[in-house]
């Protein structure tokens, strides 16, 4: 026998897990990871795993993780786009699992893009 509050807890917990199937879902933030051969070779898989783990640990809803193909700047892989609900996009380059966790914490949760890892910053240095 489940109490009302237990049922509500199950609802919320399951909703977190299946929110990406809701037709009227509010997409919120999309994390797009370059997952072509170049991306995978540069280590995009552990990066994706780190994103997912961090999202799960923080119970973030309305964050979807998807992949994309090669966009041509293979030397900067693993590349990650963080696209906000309003469509504005920040591109991170040479991401590793530690950077991924920081991007979730600073950018997605607190709204401050991690400028030192963005493509603009990298281009300035080069």
């Amino acid at each position, binding site marked *: 026998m*489940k109490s009302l509050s237990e049922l509500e807890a199950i609802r919320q917990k*399951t909703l977190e897990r299946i929110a*990406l*199937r809701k037709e009227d879902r509010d997409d919120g933030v999309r994390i797009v990871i370059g997952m*072509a051969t170049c991306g995978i070779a540069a280590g995009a898989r552990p990066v994706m795993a780190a994103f997912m783990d961090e999202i*799960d640990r923080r119970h973030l809803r309305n964050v*979807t*993780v*998807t992949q994309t*193909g090669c966009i041509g700047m293979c030397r900067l892989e693993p590349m990650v786009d963080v696209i906000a609900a309003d469509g504005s996009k920040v591109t991170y380059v040479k991401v590793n699992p530690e950077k991924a966790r920081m991007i979730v914490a600073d950018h997605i949760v607190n709204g401050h893009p991690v400028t030192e890892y963005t493509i603009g910053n990298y281009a300035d240095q080069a």
Partner: protein
Amino acid sequence: MEYYRSHVLVCGGTGCTSSGSATLLKLLDEKLAEYGLEKEVKPIRTGCFGLCEAGPVVIVYPEGTFYSRVTPRDIDEIVSEHLLKGRVVKRLLHHAKQAETAVDLSLDEMPFYKHQTRVALRNCGVISPENIDEYLAFDGYKALEKCLLHMTPQEVTATVIASGLRGRGGGGFPTGIKWQLASKSESPVKYIICNADEGDPGAFMDRSVLEGDPHSVLEAMTIAGYAIGAHEGYIYVRAEYPIAVKRLEIAIEQAKGYGLLGENILESGFSFDIHIRLGAGAFVCGEETALMVSIEGRRGEPHPKPPFPAVKGLFDMPSNINNVETLANIPPIINKGPEWFRSMGTEKSPGTKVFALGGKINNTGLVEVPMGTPLRTVIYDIGGGIPGGKQFKAVQTGGPSGGCIPAELLDVPIEYDSLTAIGSMMGSGGMIVMDEDNCMVDIARFFLDFTVDESCGKCTPCRIGTKRMLEILDRIVSGKGEEGDIEKLEKLAETIKATALCGLGQTAPNPVLSTLRFFRHEYEAHIRDKKCPAHHCRALLEYVIGPDCRGCTACMKACPVGAITGEPKVVHHINPDKCIRCGACQTKCRFGAISRQ
């Protein structure tokens, strides 16, 4: 890790299961493990998506990519390309042509889904039917909570009355009024019955709800029990629906585990239990009085009403019996209110209706549209029209109890009263589309053949009357029709309608009456000219070789009875006395020289 970045939904309805979706799931599991994605991507077996034509169907979320006709060979590509690298497998997308422009065509943009409003099917193909948590997450059992803890039984009934919901099994009786009648019967024991004895040829609306969203039916039955004061419910489902039965059993078990079924539900003091009874597949057992005696373990035969089930039903106790689709509408009505329900459909028929589209139509499958939608929208916009560039002739609604609707009435809105007015009926939701090649006399004969088979034999008009009608129709399609046959059919039909005991007999002549009304000339052509205008009836058919014949002798070799004579490079000839009208020659001819006349 409980967070999955992607969910792969594989249809586990009867249609897709029979075209191999179970193998796909198994392969998917293997491949995900092989590529190390098992912790990122979750495969889920759901209920029917509705587009059975395109099965087996696989949908990948969050993108909502719709893959159709997926074979075991395709799984590796879906996993290695789409799931691993994020590249949609374009060749597997439904409507490959449109996919060239759109990056990936998702579910909501497809014409098949765009015109639909899914209420009864809201969870079908969205949740895993074998997981109560997913049902809960999509507002499941919230309506039950609201009823048991915040509403009186009278308020629940009043809400259903206010919604204007009418019986979706075909009768169209207001559901709330039915509940009210049963609640007024004084008795310590009452029953709720769910009629899942879906028997119309080609209809599978209820099966899909049971397979895709079994908890919605359980929740609604419990609410109905609370409203009328019943503590026990029966689901009468046919044994031919093994997947539905299995998922119901799982659902009942899970609901009991969560205390949403059984003793003292949600500590409200209200108790309710549900049993499953399997029907052996007799069509007449979908008639409520026959259904109830079948549950009691007796021979499934109807008896006259009154007494109505609300007064004296199952085991002689007051009972309320609702169809699966009707029940599936109850939880959203309670949750969102009667005004929301009335905002869809028409004044007299609010809400939506599920139809099983079949026959000569491109998108065979299950659709749910608001009442009042014109037939044309369902057949052309959702159904995708008639295959092979053929001409639409008629649509049959209401199964063996309904009638045919011809092309000139395609703009009639779909609702209970308008369909009855044109001599058909809503029925449970079977919709069989016919093109120029269908002979309407033969269609009427087919449905009558069905009712003759399924007549229980208790009352004379149905047992003998329908048999006599079938004999006349058999005579007409075999070219032995006589003047006066049409009048005899009409007289028999009127007599059976007026005197048969139950709904099965009373509506059995409808297919004949409605085809007579709209296609009388076809009957007359069969009887007077001994011709079948649709070139369908074998006995009235002649295969003729035309001047396009090159004399290639292919048809001669194909003919199993040696009816074709001729020399090479000379036009051949078919001997009509020897010809058995098998059509083998026409299939073999590469020049289209052989026609049916």
